[in-house]
C-alpha cells in the first residue's frame, strides 16, 4: 500500500463518515459543518487525481461561499429540536423504501456499466491543471460554457430585480 492508497482510503472513509453525519446530525448547523468536512475530503480526492483546479474551486465555491450562505440562513432561523416537525412513522417507512429502491437502481446501473473496468488514473494526466482545463473549456466545450455563463448572468439579473422590488 503506497501513500496514495493510504490517502485514498483515509479520504474515502472521511467523506463517507462526513456524509453520514450530515444526515444523522440532530443540529442543522452540525450538519452543515459535516458537509463542509465532506467537501474537503472530496477535494482531497480531486488532488489525488491531480485535478488541482477542481479541488480548489470546490473549496472556494462550495465550502467557502455556498456553505457560508447555508450557515447564515440556518443560524438566523435558529432551528432546534422544538421547532422540528413531528414525523409520521409511515412517512419514515415510505422514505426508507424509496431510498432503498434508489440504492438498488444505482447498484444495478453501476454493475453493468463500464465504470467498473475503468479505474481512475492517479498521479497521471494533466487535464485537471488550470491551463489545460481552460484550453479545453474555451475550445472544445465553448458553447456549453458560454450557455452556462448566460444562465448565471440571468440568475444575477433576476436576483437584482427581486432585490429591488420592495
Amino acid at each position, binding site marked *: 500500500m*503506497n*501513500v*496514495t492508497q493510504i*490517502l485514498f482510503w483515509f479520504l474515502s472513509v472521511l467523506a463517507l463518515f462526513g456524509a453520514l453525519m450530515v444526515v444523522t446530525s440532530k*443540529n442543522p*448547523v*452540525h450538519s452543515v*459543518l459535516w458537509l*463542509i468536512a465532506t467537501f474537503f475530503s472530496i477535494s482531497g480526492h480531486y*488532488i*489525488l487525481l*491531480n485535478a*488541482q*483546479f477542481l479541488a*480548489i*474551486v470546490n*473549496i*472556494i465555491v462550495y*465550502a*467557502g*461561499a455556498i456553505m*457560508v450562505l447555508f*450557515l*447564515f440562513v440556518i*443560524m*438566523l432561523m435558529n432551528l432546534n429540536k422544538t421547532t422540528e416537525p413531528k414525523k409520521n412513522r409511515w412517512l419514515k417507512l415510505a422514505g426508507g423504501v424509496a431510498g432503498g429502491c434508489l440504492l438498488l437502481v444505482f447498484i444495478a446501473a453501476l454493475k453493468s456499466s463500464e465504470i467498473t473496468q475503468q479505474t481512475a488514473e492517479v*498521479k497521471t494526466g*494533466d487535464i485537471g*491543471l*488550470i*491551463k489545460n482545463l481552460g484550453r479545453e473549456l474555451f475550445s472544445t466545450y465553448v458553447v456549453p460554457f458560454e450557455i452556462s455563463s448566460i444562465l448565471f448572468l440571468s440568475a444575477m439579473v433576476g436576483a437584482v430585480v427581486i432585490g429591488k422590488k420592495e
Partner: protein
Amino acid sequence: MQGMYLLVVDWYFILEKFLLVGLVVSLSMVVAMYATYAERKVAAFLQDRIGPNRAGIFGLLQPLADGGKLFFKEEIIPLASSKALFVLGPMLAMITALLTSAVIPWSTPLRIFDRNISLQIADINIGILYIFGVVSLGVYGIMIGGWASNNKFSLLAAIRGASQMISYELAMGLSLIALLMLTGSLQMSVIVNHQLGGGLGGLLSWHVIYQPLGFVIFFICAMAECNRTPFDLPEAENELNFGYHQEYSSMKLGFYLFAEYINMFISGVVMSTLFFGGYDLPFVNEETWNIHQNWLAIIGFCTLLGKAFFFVFVFMWIRWTIPRFRFDQLMNLGWKRLIPLALINMVITAFVILWLKK
C-alpha cells in the same frame, strides 16, 4: 512535470518540507507576537505617547507577558454554548491564518548538502486560488465562534463579519484577475519570477507599476479580510457591543486576536509577493554580485520580510488614522465602488494586453 504532483514520496523531501513548515509557522507566530507589540508602540507614537516600556528593555518582553496573562486567565465556556464548536472556532481561525503561508515563495533556493532546497512549502499550480480558498474559509472561524457562543450579539457580529468577508473577497478576486492576465499563471513562483529582471534592479517590472489600481483594490480588500480598522466592524468593542468573540476568554480569545495579527503579516507577505516583486531587492542586481547562493537566499528573505513589515506598518498607520466605517458604507464601498472598479481595471488590462500583442 515533476513537482506538479502534490504527492511525491522522498524522505529527504518530506523532512525538508516538515522543517520548512515548522519554520514558517514559528516565524508567523513570532512575527504576530511582535506585531501586537508593534501595534501598541505605533499607536503610542502616533499619539505622542511612549507605549509599553516596562517589561524588558523597551518593553520587548511585553508580548510574552501578554501571552502569559492570557494563559493564566480563567477559561469560561458558557453553559448554553455548544462546547465542541465553541472550542473549534478559535482553532479554525488560527489554522486558516497559518495555512496561507504554504504557497509563499520566501526566497531563492538554499543549497545545503548539495541539495537545492526551495524555500516554498508547496509550489502548486494554483497558488493564488489556494490563497483564496483559505481566505474564504477564514469566515468559519468567525461564524462558528459567534454562533456557538449562543449569544445574540455574538451571532449578529459573526454575521456582520461573515458578510463583510464574503463581499470583499469578490473585489479581491476580481482585482487579481488583471494581474493574472499579465503573468499568465496562478503559480506563485512564476508570478515572482515575472517581476524579476526589469529596469532599476527589477523595480520597473514590479506588478504594482502595471497594476496600481489593482493593488489599491487588493490592499483595501486585504484590510477588510483581516478585519482591521476601518473595517473592524466584526469586533467593534465599544460601539457595536464587541464582536463574535464576546463570550471568549483566556487563550481562546488570544487565538482570535492572534489570528488577526498572523493574517495581517501574511497579507503583507502576499501583497509584496504579488505586487512588489516578492524577494526581489530593488535598485541592485543581486545576480551579478557573485556571492554564494545561500547568501542570496538570505538577502531575498530579509527583503521580503522588510516589505511585509512595511505593509504591516501601513495597516497600523491606517488603523490609527481612519475611523471605522458604518455597515452600509462598508457594503456600498465593497459592492458599488470596488467591484465595478476592479471590473473596469480588468477590462482595460485585457484590452491593453491585446493591443500590445498585435
